[in-house]
């Protein structure tokens, strides 16, 4: 779907995107992770032909970009750096204008297309108030509705859940999963680890303009070879497991053995109660922290690490 080769963008002397080789396959739910200012948005803009690359190649759906981008854009829905609309018009009027611009479908089916898109984005019952009176979440939904207007084969979404409450985030996640199941490839950029972890099947991590890792999420989150055991009798468990416990944190033990079934059998045989036992996996956060190195303090996400806005060219 999307392939880039050594994609590079400079603004004057500032290197914003550096030799990025993206590979998004058809049917992927691709999460493009990186801190603010790491070049995500610039990559997205280059994929859509808005910004021209300094060097390197882009192919989207088999067409070179930006040379033949107009052939593929009709089957792409996009959300770039937040939604935007004409504030003095209603949401429907805005969608009607967007729909009429460019190679739209027939005028007769416009009303229906707009209705479907609004419904999917969760704005079906919206009144005719002008967009300037919309809340941030409503604007975000309107932006998504605009992206969905033409039933795209590829969705390129930049921070799609920005400004939504937890319920809204979940709704959008379900919507994207549903669209993906119906055959739409989803490429979404985010700095929210949890969001990418919950939705995506494939992840690319970008740090200071470079793609530092790209792999399937399942492969990234491979088991570590250790097991996590929770028990109401931690002292006895430590004694039974005899030296295999790497780390103890109250009732939570980290055991240096991947075979959870065997551990469980040993504990139960010794009369130790086990409330939970699972194989330890690397969290996406661990992966990100390990590959982004010193830049890790730029990251947001669920952890206690404060998010810092870095370099202003997102």
């Amino acid at each position, binding site marked *: 779907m999307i392939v880039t080769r050594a994609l590079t963008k400079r603004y004057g002397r500032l290197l914003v995107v550096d030799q990025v080789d993206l590979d998004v396959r058809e049917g992927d739910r691709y999460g493009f992770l990186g801190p603010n200012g790491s070049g995500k948005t610039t990559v997205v803009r280059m994929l859509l032909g808005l910004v021209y690359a300094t060097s390197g190649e882009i192919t989207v759906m088999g067409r070179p970009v930006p040379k033949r981008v107009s052939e593929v*854009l009709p089957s792409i829905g996009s959300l*770039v750096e937040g939604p935007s609309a004409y504030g003095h018009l209603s949401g429907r009027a805005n969608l009607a204008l967007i729909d009429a611009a460019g190679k739209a479908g027939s005028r007769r089916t416009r009303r229906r297309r707009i209705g479907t898109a609004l419904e999917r984005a969760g704005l079906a019952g919206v009144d005719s108030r002008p967009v300037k009176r919309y809340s941030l979440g409503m604007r975000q939904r309107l932006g998504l509705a605009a992206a969905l207007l033409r039933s795209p084969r590829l969705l390129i979404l930049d921070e799609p859940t920005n400004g939504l409450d937890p319920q809204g985030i979940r709704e959008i996640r379900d919507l994207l999963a549903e669209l993906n199941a119906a055959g739409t490839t989803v490429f979404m950029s985010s700095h929210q680890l949890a969001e990418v972890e919950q939705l995506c099947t494939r992840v690319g991590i970008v740090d200071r303009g470079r793609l530092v890792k790209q792999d399937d999420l399942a492969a990234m989150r491979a088991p570590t070879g250790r097991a996590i055991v929770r028990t109401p009798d931690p002292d006895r468990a430590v004694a039974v497991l005899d030296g295999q416990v790497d780390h103890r944190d109250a009732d939570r033990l980290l055991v240096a053995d991947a075979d959870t079934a065997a551990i469980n059998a040993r504990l139960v045989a010794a009369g130790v109660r086990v409330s939970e036992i699972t194989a330890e996996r690397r969290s996406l956060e661990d992966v990100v922290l390990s590959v982004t190195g010193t830049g890790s303090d730029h990251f947001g996400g669920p952890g206690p690490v404060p998010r810092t806005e870095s370099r202003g060219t997102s």
Partner: protein
Amino acid sequence: MIGVELVKLARRPRSWVSILLLCALPTLVAVFVAVTHLAPPPGQGPALLSAVLSSGALFPAAALAIVLPVFLPVAVAVVAGDSIAGEAGSGTLRYLLARPVGRTRLLVAKLVALVVYTLAAVALVTGTAYLTGIMLFGAQPVAATPSGLTTSNLAAGATTLSGTAMSPTEIALRTLGAVSFIVVSMLGVGAIALFLSTVTDSALGAALGALAALVTSEVLVTLNAASAVDPYLPTRYWLAWIDFFREPIVWRNIERGFAVQGVYVVVFLGAAWAHFATKDITS
């Protein structure tokens, strides 16, 4: 896309408010003149206003002379300056281009909308001025002379004037000529503002930039030291449309005015296209 731009123009309150204000100013002037019967003496005040008291049919031309120096260029510069920069500022430009709307097509659509706006503004000013003129001053016949306009009132008689009497049709035709000249002059301003609109993401900056160019030109026109560049200044022939009301019509400055504005339009639209088509859209 042209249709979309026209809808946007029509659904924008600003378009109508600005045209309303453009129409209101000459009407205000007409009311004052009609109430007091104190028209400025010939050669002072807005062009043609002195003749208006004797014939309302001349008021459309006088109204154009009232709005031409400041208000019309400001309105045109604001609309043209907003065309690309306004979309960039509100963040809608990237979505239009990703629709996709070709960059050249977008620019052409914006240009068409600008022409329509200018035409509508000038036409509505002329129309309302005609109505106010006829209502407040009546429609007596007018004579045009080589030095400008004179009214052929009944007491003096047409024989004492060197000019020939103008029929209503003739006044209408001459006004039409003046209107087209003014529209083309305004497109010169619009082209400058449109070019600046592709350069900056600030609609205000683009409009002010175009107005700054006009003010510079006005200053240089009055400056003898700048006489070398005088024929090429955008505002040099702005008032040449008054020559449509002379008898016979003096074509020299009118033709030059059209030519100069034509060059400005072509050069700045070309520059706007060249810049916009190759620009990184980062707004």
